[in-house]
């Protein structure tokens, strides 16, 4: 007799036959778990490539008069480093990667709402990435990842390739955003109201509309740039009636929400990891959930704080400054809630927890320098200097990337059935912490002392701290190397993990590691929040999940 229970019909109960053949299972898979892993692997490959570009930057800056690469190549290197990190590493890893792997499991679904669309979304990504890197062969973009006209109008063909590649990867993002919203709205397990949904899913729910809406705005800006460069249609060229400031508005209207795309899912990850390793409920669940939505919404209203030196009228600068300050409030709510979660908890010092705690500290530092930058008088002084570089590396590397590391150590066992090596993990963490801070902390005062960004050479007064920064960056790179060694080693040799090595309480930990392709034998019913450690699990219907009872894929 089939053990497949069909709850309420439709997509909730229906188990498809298992896909057959290597290609359908691992290459053109429609399984969200496989797709998520594909995103993660591809994202990590681009992390390595873009990291190498970063080391070219740091090596160039070992000497005040440069000399490692020519200034023209240097412009290409930092433009591609920024573009790749934003669009080929952080965003795909944190939305398509971890979002796909975790979210459907956490809401008790068998897959996302549109699995075929999910697969298409993924496959666009490596193609677009190859397109972007191919621009090195034709004169890569040189105007930074922000590609302001008129420079971006005048540069070589690689800039058009850049525009096309980012447009394409944006399509991937937009489709993922649509997929995630519909999945979370319609496919939560019975009993899982929004206020019983795990915080990682709340974070993805806040991020998905940004993916949908903001990315499309970027698509318009890129399309206009492409049309102007290739067909001479005037948008941004002031000699033809266009406006370079218009590019800045259109670009930043996307790119500011983009930074929230890059951080909100990491916030969600931290909100899952901290309660597990404190053995305590998350403090302020509702506040954390709603603050994610507040940040997502407010994120649309502050874009011009990237344009304070572009000649905006002061009466316009003021509201953007004030709105930017206010984003600190929901963010601060999270920081306090996380701290209160840890407080008094029985802390288990796993690598995942170390990265999560490190995230809280380093992201806070980055957030504080963000407040400095929000103040117009200060920003006028440090715009375009290394202070800005320091700020965003603290929030993106000390924040998003550490969140990705934390999530990898946490979820690797669920996906592979094996634990990552804790010793190597701890070496990774401490070396990374030291290397990261050594690299980027001095850049704050380099910027305040006046060192501009995007320069291949600099005044000799900045020599010492640049060297300090560069040497530290090699330490950081070494730490990341340890991470990848750990990852690859643990796939075959890691200790077996079992379904729930961390004793966590969300749904994904109540099924085998790795999960069956159908996720759950029976979709459970949810009757409470997952974070109340010490209480029984708030689920019904999970009895068969860890048994060997057979499941028959069946059509209705």
């Amino acid at each position, binding site marked *: 007799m089939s053990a497949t229970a069909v709850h309420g019909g439709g997509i909730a109960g229906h188990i498809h036959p298992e896909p057959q053949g290597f290609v359908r299972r691992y290459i053109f898979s429609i399984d969200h778990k496989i797709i998520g892993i594909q995103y993660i692997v591809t994202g990590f490959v681009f992390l390595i490539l873009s990291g190498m570009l970063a080391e070219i930057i740091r090596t160039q800056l070992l000497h005040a008069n440069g000399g490692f690469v020519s200034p023209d190549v240097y412009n290409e290197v930092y433009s591609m480093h920024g573009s790749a990190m934003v669009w080929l590493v952080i965003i795909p890893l944190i939305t398509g990667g971890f979002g796909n792997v975790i979210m459907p499991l956490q809401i008790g679904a068998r897959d996302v709402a549109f699995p075929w669309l999910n697969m298409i979304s993924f496959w666009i990504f490596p193609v677009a990435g190859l397109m972007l890197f191919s621009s090195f062969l034709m004169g890569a973009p040189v105007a930074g990842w922000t590609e302001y006209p008129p420079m971006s109008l005048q540069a070589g063909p690689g800039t058009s390739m850049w525009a096309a590649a980012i447009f394409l990867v944006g399509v991937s993002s937009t489709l993922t955003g649509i997929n995630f*919203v519909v999945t979370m709205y319609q496919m939560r397990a019975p009993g899982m109201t929004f206020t019983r949904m795990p915080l990682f899913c709340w974070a993805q729910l806040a991020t998905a509309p940004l993916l949908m809406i903001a990315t499309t705005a970027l698509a318009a800006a890129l399309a206009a740039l492409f049309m102007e460069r290739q067909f001479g249609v005037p948008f941004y060229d002031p000699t033809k009636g266009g406006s370079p400031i218009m590019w800045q508005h259109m670009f930043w209207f996307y790119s500011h929400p983009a930074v929230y795309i890059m951080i909100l899912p990491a916030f969600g990850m931290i909100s899952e990891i901290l309660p597990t390793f404190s053995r305590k409920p998350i403090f302020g669940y509702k506040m954390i959930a709603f603050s994610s939505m507040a940040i997502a919404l407010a994120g649309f209203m502050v874009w011009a704080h990237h344009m304070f030196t572009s000649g905006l009228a002061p009466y316009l600068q003021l509201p953007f400054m004030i709105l930017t300050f206010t984003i600190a409030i929901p963010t601060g709510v999270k920081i306090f809630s996380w701290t209160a979660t840890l407080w008094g908890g029985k802390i288990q010092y796993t690598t995942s927890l170390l990265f999560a705690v490190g995230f809280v500290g380093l992201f806070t530092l980055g957030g504080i320098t963000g407040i400095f930058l929000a103040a117009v008088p200060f920003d006028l002084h440090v715009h375009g200097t290394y202070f800005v570089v320091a700020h965003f590396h603290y929030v993106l590397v000390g924040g998003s990337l550490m969140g990705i590391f934390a999530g990898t150590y946490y979820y690797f066992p669920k996906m592979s059935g094996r634990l990552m090596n804790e010793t190597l993990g701890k070496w990774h963490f401490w070396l990374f912490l030291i290397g990261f801070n050594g690299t980027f902390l001095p850049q704050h005062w380099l910027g305040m002392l006046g060192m501009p960004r995007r320069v291949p050479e600099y005044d000799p007064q900045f020599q010492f701290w640049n060297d300090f920064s560069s040497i530290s960056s090699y330490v950081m790179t070494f730490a990341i190397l340890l991470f990848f060694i750990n990852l690859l080693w643990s796939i075959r040799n890691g200790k077996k993990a079992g379904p729930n090595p961390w004793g966590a309480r969300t749904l994904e930990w109540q099924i085998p590691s790795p999960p069956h392709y159908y996720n759950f034998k029976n979709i459970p019913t949810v009757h409470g929040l997952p974070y109340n450690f010490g209480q029984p699990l708030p689920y019904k219907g999970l009895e068969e999940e860890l048994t060997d009872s057979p499941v028959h894929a069946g059509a209705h």
Partner: protein
Amino acid sequence: MAVAAVPHGAVDHGGADQLYIETRSLRLQGFLLFLVSDCVLFSSFIFAYLYMRNSGQGWPPPGINRLDVAFAALNSVVLFGSGATMHYALENWKHENFGRYVFFMLATIVLGIGFLSGQAYEYTTLYFREHVSWAGSGIFGASFFTLTGMHGFHVSVGVLYLIILFLQSVHGIYTKDKYFGLTAGTLYWHFVDVIWVVLFSIFYLI
């Protein structure tokens, strides 16, 4: 006045149909969100147009004549009419009036092609008589041809989609309960209509 219900040749997919019907809300929400993102795309270009137009050199810029409002208004009526016929096509499908469905669906397609022909006429007039081009007429040509071109592209895709839907419905892909493709087509067609309301207003009326 009912005619034949589901046309001959409709295939009974049994359980798969049931799944299709139950997951309709997924597809509907997904399609609506797609339309939202398409709205954002148009809004971004509309922002660009309004920003450039506000640059202070007067509109139309020197050397360019005002657009032909009367002709565009007539063309707009054609498009809005096609929106109405599409609405009736879907209503008749839902009430199993297949004959009327066919009439209104074909009317929609014809009117859609009519609108595109009107646009083509407008473009050729602008290019050959007024010497207004996409790249060679400053921000006027850039904004007008980009936005109306994007819209025309959406209408063209819409006409193709409607033709495909029509052929599918004739072959019995859709039933009385299972017709999401037609719903999606109707929503898309109304979306294209609404975008045109905005474009017509900002290019021809102001």
